[in-house]
């Protein structure tokens, strides 16, 4: 098992090199001269040339990428074009806020999505099932930025019961209050996906022969549902939670913008508008690495849920 996990971490390395490579080269296409961005239009040709030399911009692209990767291994993501601050520091400063928001959202999504999916499957084709499926489909179709704005109009502007933006960390209660709206908004898409996946996965398992076996043993319906159905339906649900988490990292970009949340998502959008390429690069790479790590954790989790997968790992 440990050998397998180690192997998976090793396999992550080429993927991460690929990700950084693609992102680096896409962003290298960014129009505009970084030196002009940093020094402004009035700078003399000579000072520009000096800075260009200093930043290594005269080097060929591949060399610059290699240098960047060497820096990255030491936790160095370069400096912002805008304020010369260390990109890695700036990201780490904002990361906890994004992590709290994303975790809150995935928690809400799971706590609502899994039970609703189970109830829906157990009551297939009833009104209850229909209603929750309509809600789920609406949730999938919901533009998060619109939902965010609507909730702000209702709860912050009109009812004035929740803050409309920012992350107030002055007290735990205040922090919780400022998490409610963005947490819900960010969770909606994932919640709907998880609900639908839980339902269809449960329906699939419900028809299996071993459910009949369990019933024939005299097992109570509650135990049949959880011990026999849910534990077998878990793999697709976990998969979709993992995918959702990736989408959450992406979705946080929009949600953080709507709620002026001081996280990486809003930071990347601002940096793009200011043509601050090193910061954009750092953020995109950071979020992609997070995404890959989450996927790795999900893969490892499979083994704990399904003994068949675990014994495959042992064989390898």
């Amino acid at each position, binding site marked *: 098992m440990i050998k397998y996990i180690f192997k998976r971490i090793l396999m992550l390395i080429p993927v*991460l090199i690929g990700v950084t490579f693609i992102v680096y080269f896409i962003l290298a296409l960014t129009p505009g001269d970084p030196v002009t961005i940093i020094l402004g239009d009035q700078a003399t040709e000579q000072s520009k040339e000096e800075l260009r030399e200093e930043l290594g911009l005269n080097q060929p692209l591949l060399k610059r990428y290699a240098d960047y990767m060497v820096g990255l291994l030491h936790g160095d993501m370069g400096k912002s074009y805008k304020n010369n601050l260390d990109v890695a520091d700036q990201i780490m400063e904002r990361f906890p806020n994004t992590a709290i928001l994303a975790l809150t959202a995935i928690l809400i999504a799971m706590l609502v999505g899994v039970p609703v999916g189970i109830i829906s499957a157990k009551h297939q084709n009833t009104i209850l099932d229909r209603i929750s499926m309509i809600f789920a489909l609406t949730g999938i179709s*919901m*533009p998060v930025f*619109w939902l965010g*704005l609507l909730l702000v*109009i209702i709860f912050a502007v009109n009812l004035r019961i929740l803050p409309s933006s920012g992350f107030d960390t002055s007290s735990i209660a205040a922090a919780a209050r400022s998490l409610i709206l963005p947490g819900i908004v960010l969770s909606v898409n994932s919640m709907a996906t998880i609900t639908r996946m839980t339902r269809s996965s449960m329906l699939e398992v419900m028809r299996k022969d071993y459910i009949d076996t369990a019933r024939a043993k005299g097992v109570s319906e509650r135990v049949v549902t959880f011990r026999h159905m849910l534990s077998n339906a878990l793999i697709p649900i976990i998969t979709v939670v993992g995918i959702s988490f990736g989408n959450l990292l992406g979705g946080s*970009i929009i949600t953080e913008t709507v709620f002026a949340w001081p996280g990486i998502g809003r930071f990347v959008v601002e940096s793009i508008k200011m043509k601050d390429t090193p910061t954009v690069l750092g953020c995109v790479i950071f979020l992609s690495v997070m995404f890959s790590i989450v996927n790795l954790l999900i893969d490892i989790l499979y083994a704990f849920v399904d003994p068949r997968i675990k014994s495959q790992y042992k064989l390898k």
Partner: protein
Amino acid sequence: MKENKATSFMQETDAPKERGLWLDVWTRLRKNKVALVGMFFLILLVVVSLSTFVIDLVTKESFYNNFVIKQELTEKLKGPSAGHIFGQDEFGRDVFLRIIWGTRYSLLLGVGATIMAALLGGAVGAVAGFYGKKLDNLLMRLMDILLSIPSILLSIAIVAALGTNMFNVMLAIAISYVPQYARIVRAAIMEQKSMEYIEASRAVGAADPRIIIRHIIPNAMAPIIVQATLGIAGCILSIAGLSFLGLGIQPPVPEWGGMLSNARQYMRDAWHITAFPGLAIMLTILSLNLVGDALRDALDPKLKN
């Protein structure tokens, strides 16, 4: 000569089966009333969007200039009224007409990005699935890498690098959807490749691209169509999201996501300029998802119950 014989045999056996399949799909689809409502809404959108083109053409854009982008600053942010059923925006423009004229961007860009993604992804998947081995490995690892970048982040990076014109936005969205199609087509091809009729066409000497395009793709169409229907929904949502962030379609073009982006500043005073463009986006996505779901169920009735 031999090859002709083989392909004409294929056509004879395939054609009636194909027609029967789609007829079956339609009978099953018709039972799903909610999906029919969704389909009706989509047809309505297409008709509306086409008529805006006709109106622009006939009136030589004078209607567009005099009504759609006409500013009435004295009446800015006015709520819904008889004259302006969805109210007026921050420049006093009619929100309803702007939504109507915005239909074309969502539809065209959504469909365009999906076609682009399906063609690119389809080509990658077809080559990978058909030739297998090293090429397959290389291409699919590349797709894995693309998949490890959260899709909206990838789109944002591309738009940031290339700039925000409509083609770039479409390209940026399309690229982030490429891996999905590549996987579907590859899987379908792997499955079809081992079937006897492919062996048969190979045996009579049909060329590889011919086998892929004439035999394998048509048989793999069902999952691709379902994916594409749902994909259009995803693309429209992503485009609106980019525009909302200010990284997509730029004002004054009446794109729905862009309208929401502007509306943000005024949401304290005018709920209607936030509510209606978003509603348009949501109903469009919902309809596409309804139809996509219904199509999937209709194409594979086994999955439904």
